């Protein structure tokens, strides 16, 4: 009755694609122009928070092991923390730019969770491969929000942060429950489908 895991990945991919486009636009036009309309300031932080909220049902319904539950739960909390911190900054309730470190923390936790809960090797299946790539992408990508917290006006940091979400979206759209990767598919992975 519940949707396949790959479908959930595609839904999150769409969410990350929107996040990436919003962040890229903010990076290109600058924070001053982006924040000229108040609702726009809340757009991506609230989306990030909502994505974190959506991770809770994923944790509940896709728990096939303890490590999956811990990974999905920590993701949910990390995304919500990052979104909430950015919302606080957008609203003016939080003042220190170092609150942006929550986004770096969120990406680092997400990357680590991807790597820890994928127990198969890289070429086991496409899903396993993508989990490894996503994990390392997010871990490495945590550098960008870190740089953004230290140098808020840096274009490279903002654009890099946006690029992390766009790459994540592409990788999530590539996910399949059972499919080969570069011609490799373990016999233990199950029967491939479309």
């Amino acid at each position: 009755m519940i949707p396949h895991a790959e479908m959930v990945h595609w839904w999150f991919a769409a969410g990350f694609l929107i996040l990436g486009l919003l962040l890229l636009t903010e990076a290109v036009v600058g924070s001053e122009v982006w924040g000229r309309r108040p609702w726009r300031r809340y757009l991506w932080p609230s989306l990030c928070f909502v994505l974190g909220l959506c991770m809770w049902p994923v944790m509940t319904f896709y728990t096939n092991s303890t490590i999956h539950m811990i990974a999905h739960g920590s993701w949910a909390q990390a995304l919500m923390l990052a979104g909430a911190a950015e919302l606080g900054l957008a609203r003016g309730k939080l003042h220190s730019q170092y609150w942006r470190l929550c986004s770096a923390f969120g990406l680092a936790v997400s990357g680590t969770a991807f790597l820890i809960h994928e127990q198969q090797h890289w070429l086991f299946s496409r899903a396993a491969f993508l989990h490894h790539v996503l994990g390392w992408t997010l871990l490495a990508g945590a550098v960008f929000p870190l740089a953004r917290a230290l140098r808020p006006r840096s274009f490279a940091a903002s654009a890099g942060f946006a690029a992390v979400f766009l790459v994540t979206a592409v990788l999530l759209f590539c996910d399949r429950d059972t499919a080969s990767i570069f011609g490799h598919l373990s016999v233990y992975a199950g029967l491939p489908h479309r």
Partner: protein
Amino acid sequence: MNAELVTELQASEEDAPRVASGRARFVLALGPITVLVGLAWALVQPYRLTLLHPYGQGFWWLLSEPPLYVVLVGVLFRLFVAPGVVKDLEE
């Protein structure tokens, strides 16, 4: 200078469309580029669109149309986000 010529020059300046800045053009292009990527994906992998072969498919498969998600994101961005950003950018 001839008054008639000045009037014509002023009129032609007012009629000329405003040239958008590079940043504005980039923002305006993001949505259509996303839509094009989604359409290209649909053309390359039409079997990803369950709507093209809907018989015998369950609810979740009919809901899951990843190339259309990409197109939808591009359309929403172009319609609801880009115009306001470009307007603010050029003010």
